[in-house]
């Protein structure tokens, strides 16, 4: 008989893990609360640094997970620990007995309304990174379509590295995402001036530095080291942004047609809807707490509960996929150890 493995979350980590587990002869049961698979990536346009279309990645992963049991529009109500297994109760009335649960609940984008001073929801010219991706994907957005678009700005670290916003952690991927989006925007509007306001640029991944150089050299994106602290509107209905150019040591102000807020990643607040006997405690960074963050990042404190992807911290797409695979290996070895 094939062993059940419940996977919470049908994003890229969940999909990859489901495909790999099925390949190893397990019976993965994938639970996704939205009506579609792929998580945030399903709304994304293309991926850094090679501008691969996100929908290709998602469809490959969905195809790989085809043999898994997949429940969309379904939430996990609660998980209770029994003698040697878990009882997972789903919102569609299904109750699953399983020895292993893989938590791949991912992240949520910081709600940019909470940074009052940036005027998201107040000014028509202020959007978020996610809004911009949707527009790249062809969904009309009057905030972008209606403006003259001669200049745009990206504000890094919105709701990340920000104690006031309750998230002091670096969200890690926003720097490179901003570079990517700036390049894409430049491709659409070659005449546009594009500015990036950053606190520190963190170009840590493979070919990221090249991508950054290309943004400067090939696309003329301008980088200013200074965090935006105030956004106001002028009489023409454009936004006036205030920051300090910390390298020059002078305050700067600039008038823009579009301001993109790079909302950071925060942990999904609820892994399961109601509390059962199994809890998912948060670490000091707000993300889920793993057994240790060097070698046992896949394991939770409870035997049989595993983690994959950005539920334990901000991660890039390749990192998430790699973690999903390693989680599958951990689960496989764990089952073998039980026999």
């Amino acid at each position: 008989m094939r062993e059940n493995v419940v996977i919470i979350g049908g994003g890229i980590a969940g999909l990859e893990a489901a495909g790999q587990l099925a390949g190893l002869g397990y019976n993965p049961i994938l639970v996704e609360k939205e009506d579609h698979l792929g998580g945030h990536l399903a709304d994304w346009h293309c991926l850094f640094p090679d501008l691969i279309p996100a929908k290709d990645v998602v469809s490959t992963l969905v195809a790989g997970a085809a043999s898994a049991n997949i429940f969309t529009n379904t939430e996990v109500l609660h998980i209770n620990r029994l003698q040697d297994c878990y009882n997972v109760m789903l919102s569609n009335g299904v109750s699953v007995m399983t020895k292993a649960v893989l938590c791949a609940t991912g992240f949520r984008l910081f709600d940019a309304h909470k940074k009052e001073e940036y005027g998201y929801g107040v000014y028509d010219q202020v959007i978020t990174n996610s809004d911009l991706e949707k527009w790249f994907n062809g969904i009309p957005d009057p905030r972008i379509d209606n403006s003259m678009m001669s200049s745009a700005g990206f504000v890094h670290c919105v709701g990340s590295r920000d104690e006031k916003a309750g998230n002091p952690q670096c969200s890690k991927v926003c720097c490179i995402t901003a570079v990517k989006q700036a390049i894409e925007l430049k491709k659409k509007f070659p005449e546009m001036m594009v500015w990036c306001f950053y606190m520190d640029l963190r170009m840590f991944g493979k070919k990221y530095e090249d991508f950054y150089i290309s943004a400067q050299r090939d696309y003329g994106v301008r980088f200013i080291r200074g965090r935006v602290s105030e956004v106001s509107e002028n009489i023409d209905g454009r936004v006036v942004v205030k920051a300090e150019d910390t390298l020059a040591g002078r305050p700067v102000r600039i008038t823009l047609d579009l301001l993109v807020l790079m909302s950071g990643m925060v942990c999904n607040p609820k892994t399961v809807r109601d509390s059962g006997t199994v809890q998912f405690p948060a670490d000091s960074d707000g993300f889920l707490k793993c057994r240790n963050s060097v070698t046992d990042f896949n394991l939770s404190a409870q035997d049989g509960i595993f983690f994959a992807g950005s539920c334990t911290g901000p991660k890039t797409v390749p990192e998430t996929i790699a973690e999903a695979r390693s989680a599958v290996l951990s689960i496989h070895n764990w089952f073998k150890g039980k026999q």
Partner: protein
Amino acid sequence: MRERFLTGYNNFVLPFLIGMVFILTYCLVCLFRILHQLPHEDRKRFLLSLVNPKILLKNIRDIFCDCLLHLKIWKRNKLLGYMHSSIAFGWFMLIVIGHIEVFLYVPHRAKFLYYPIFFRYFVAETESTLRGGFFFFLMDFFLLVVLSGIFLAMLKRLRSRMFGMRRTTNQSLLDTIGLYSLWSIFPLRLLAEGFTAEISGGSFLTKSLNHVFTAFLGNHVNMLPTWWAYSIALGVFFCVLPFTRYMHIPSEMLLIPLRNAGLKIRNARKGLAKVQVYSCPSCGLCIDACPMSVMKTHAKDTTVYLNRQIRRGNEKRIEEISDKCLLCGKCTAICPVGVQGDALRVAQRAMRNSGMDSVWKTSGKIAGTPEPPQSQGKTLYFAGCMTALTPSILKSVETLFRASGNEYEILDRDGGICCGRPMMTAGRTEEAEGMIRRNTELILDSGADTLLVSCPICYRVFTENYNLPGVRVVHHSVWLKEMLDSGALEIAPDNQRYVWHDPCELGRGCGIYEQPREVLKAAGELVEAGMHHKESLCCGGSLGSLTLNFEKRRAMTQNALENITAENPDVIVTGCPLCLNTFGRFADRPVKDISEIAAALLKSDCK
């Protein structure tokens, strides 16, 4: 009634006499010192107020209501009110009736300070005491009233929650001595009068007690020692009184006329401030009231402890307590004697020398400061520093301006000079005055007839410290109410449940409570927070505190949010950019400024 002793004297009155002379001398010396410490104009103002019949009448009424009847405490908790007024008013009546008796029966003894107190020892009952019987009854009645108060006071030490107090102050050693001597005065008086009742006469209480005594203690040997004990208890109480919290009794009688004369605290250690510090009865009501007390570690940073440390001269703690306070003013609002915890702290901060030069101390124009927009006959809008960080307010106010047809100019569209209140509350009076002077010039030069502000911090300083002849200063919540009343703005109500958060500076600071509530009633359903109006809780974001860091403020914000959502409203509404920002960070439901609510609900023909 006839006298039992020709001399009208016994040695046992000595402890009382010593105590009484000591306390009277002490109070007189203090009174002169305080009057001497007052600045000249304040002293003149105070002395003049004493001959003003209207103020004099108010003084008497206040002293009667506050010092004797404790009406303010009654409003807070009936049991606590009864405890205080039974002791104070009962004792007062005992003294008054004692004097009446002396004047009626032995008028030639009226010159002796002790005679009314120990009257029963010195007189014997004669046959014709029908009138005496009346007074005997009154005396016993008020003694019983006081004793019931003392009993409650003992009970309160054990179970303060019964009296509506979660936390009370820790007693100092001298306070304990004072407390025990006060507690023992009246039972001892009862004993002494009980032993004497068959000679001096008595009523239901003392006479009955006498019958019990005579049943097993047949002689009068016990009489004198109890009178001695009574006198000693009084003497001890009077002698320790200046060094205990009971100093509030004489101090409050000075504080009331000083307050009614309209004096303000000018120095944290002298004059009015000193009277306030000594008027603090250490009741500890401010501990529960203080928004910082949500964290146990802050319980000793409340006003009652500030007063105690000022009396002890513990400079380090005085600084700590003064700098930590949010200046929300709630302790001042609820203090039964009228100690101004916030003003006291600001005055304390002002005693420090900043040790720095500041451009604001100089005179003359500072290059780069804004130019006044020409606003002849228009409304001038001073958004304030904080509003620049809450664009939703700025945008809504502009929408409302346009809809109402009012012509307006913005004084600080591109950043202005701060209103000066943050500087003032930090204790930098001179710098603050420099800023006030420059803003005054700007406003007057603009020619505007109305100054609209949307930050209560600014509003308070504009109304309290600015002199702007011909310019009406108005907060946007009040302006909104007026616009709705006059029909210049019309809003279509929705079915949302709104709760109004009283910003400290707007409510307790400026007394604006009702206008914003009226606006919300026009917008939807108004519900109240757990504690509201003058009891509302500071959001925790106040600029008043100098030392509280973000982490500590968070606990206060969360506590205030629990309070504001007691009735489970749909939207939290406030009128202060700082509250908006602070609440918005942690709230689980929308937090909006009152202008946003109005702008969103504007009827379409207004837009």
